[in-house]
């Protein structure tokens, strides 16, 4: 089966972001950018499906700036066969990304689409579910296990309080949770090979999708800082403080 994997270029998860002085957003100048960690898990899952002989072709797609080519090349080095960049300059909201992905799904006709459950910049946790709505496909979100069984997909999901398993008709949409797999690192030979793999760039206009949003960010502020308290010297002092000062036990 053909597998489509959607990835996002985001600020590296080790970077401590700072809010811009004019409150227009966070400062991303000269900050290390990477593939969103949940998207790495999505790529890894597709590669494993190919290694098992379940997936026949892996197409990786990103909706974002020209520089997202770097992350697409990374995905190609990890094992994706070809890449599509839907080039869009502005910061997009999830519905716009889902609409662009829907157009790619219409064209590519994958049996399975894998996405990260959320991007660590916007923390929206929306795109996969929205793509499922637009395509009318079933969705297996927050997946910790994915098994293809004939024309069905069994997805085990991380839910509040435990795990849930659902059976989905294919084609289907899956979003990854942390424990689905541990992504590999790209080897140097594969990084070199990835440079020769096809990477196609398309414009949203070519796909006939509108990237308009009903949401507008008015301002971005630093969160209220929590100041450090005191160090206590002993268990007895801690218990005394919690009982008499904080009154929480």
């Amino acid at each position, binding site marked *: 089966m053909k597998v489509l994997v959607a990835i996002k270029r985001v600020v590296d998860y080790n970077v401590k972001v700072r809010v811009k002085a004019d409150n227009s957003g966070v400062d991303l100048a000269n900050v290390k950018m990477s593939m969103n960690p949940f998207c790495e898990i999505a790529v890894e899952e597709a590669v494993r499906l190919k290694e098992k002989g379940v997936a026949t072709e892996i197409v990786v797609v990103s909706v974002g700036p020209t520089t997202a080519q770097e992350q697409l090349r990374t995905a190609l080095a990890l094992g994706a066969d070809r890449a599509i960049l839907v080039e869009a300059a502005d910061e997009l909201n999830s519905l716009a990304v889902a609409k662009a992905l829907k157009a790619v799904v219409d064209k590519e006709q994958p049996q399975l689409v894998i996405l990260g459950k959320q991007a660590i910049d916007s923390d929206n946790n929306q795109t996969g*579910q929205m793509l499922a709505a637009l395509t009318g496909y079933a*969705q297996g979100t927050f997946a910790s296990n994915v098994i293809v069984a004939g024309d069905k997909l069994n997805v085990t999901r991380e839910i509040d309080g435990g795990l849930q398993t659902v059976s989905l008709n294919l084609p289907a949409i899956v979003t990854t949770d942390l424990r689905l797999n541990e992504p590999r690192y790209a080897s140097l030979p594969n990084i070199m090979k990835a440079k020769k793999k096809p990477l196609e760039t398309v414009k949203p206009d070519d796909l006939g999708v509108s990237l308009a949003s009903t949401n507008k960010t008015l301002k971005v502020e630093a969160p209220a800082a929590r100041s450090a308290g005191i160090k206590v010297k002993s268990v007895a002092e801690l218990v005394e403080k919690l009982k008499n000062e904080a009154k929480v036990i």
Partner: protein
Amino acid sequence: MTILVVAEHDNHTLAAPTLNTLAAARQIGGEVVVLVAGLDVSGVAFAAAQIAGVSKVLMADDAAYARQLPENVAPLVANLGRDFSHVLAPATSNGKNILPRVAALLDVDQISEIISVESADTFKRPIYAGNAIATVQSNAAVKVITVRSTGFEALPAEGGSAPIVALAGARDTGISAFVGEELATSDRPELTAADIVLSGGRGMGNGDNFSHLYRLADKLGAAVGASRAAVDAGFVPNDMQVGQTGKIVAPQLYIAVGISGAIQHLAGMKESKVIVAINKDEEAPIFQVADYGLVGDLFDIVPALTSTL
């Protein structure tokens, strides 16, 4: 304004985050209608009707909704939602699963995990793991919003007597089916609802050592959580994870044991009223947010705490 609130429940009990979501709805203002979709949910609908400020309860009682499959529930919510100014759901795993599907069916962007209501169309929400707070305005005809429970004090569960209206015409899309679930069984309180939360990190060393925390938790009536490092190391299951990618908690007392305090973890607990950190590394970042810090070996301190209390 009319607000539709999607109730969180397990077909038997109305879950607490519904009350926090109703508090957000009250702040927006206007008429509040609660939707209870599930199977054999008359008890849940009755409970929802008792909440002060609820003007009506819509009950969709059908096997198609028994397991909250988004393929079935989202079209129901979207079709009802067209007639409302806002559709709200708690940011639980169900809410996060269903509501973006609803938003896309209504062709609007969702606002995820709001922590405050600025006005009927403007809300605050954390981004970048809580390292920034965005103020977001929606011009959508129907504003689709998930609500982070810790941002809103729960409404009392009684004081009302709203009418219950049963909805007909349920439809199973047939493209997904429930297979099974494994729910952790515990006598301890739920992480997101507990007054006291004890969390262990990589410093716990292994899963067996969490027994030290369980003993202390049982003394305090506390829930037990973990950092992502402890989950990734395989000490404990993922549903115990507190942080950006896990549960968001804001108890009266949070005790971080052997947790260094990565920003992803702080994002999940820094709204707690009182934070205690126990760590042998006095430079650990967790001490920068802790009200009370105790530097030392957790394997001495935790048993000592258990016997002192």
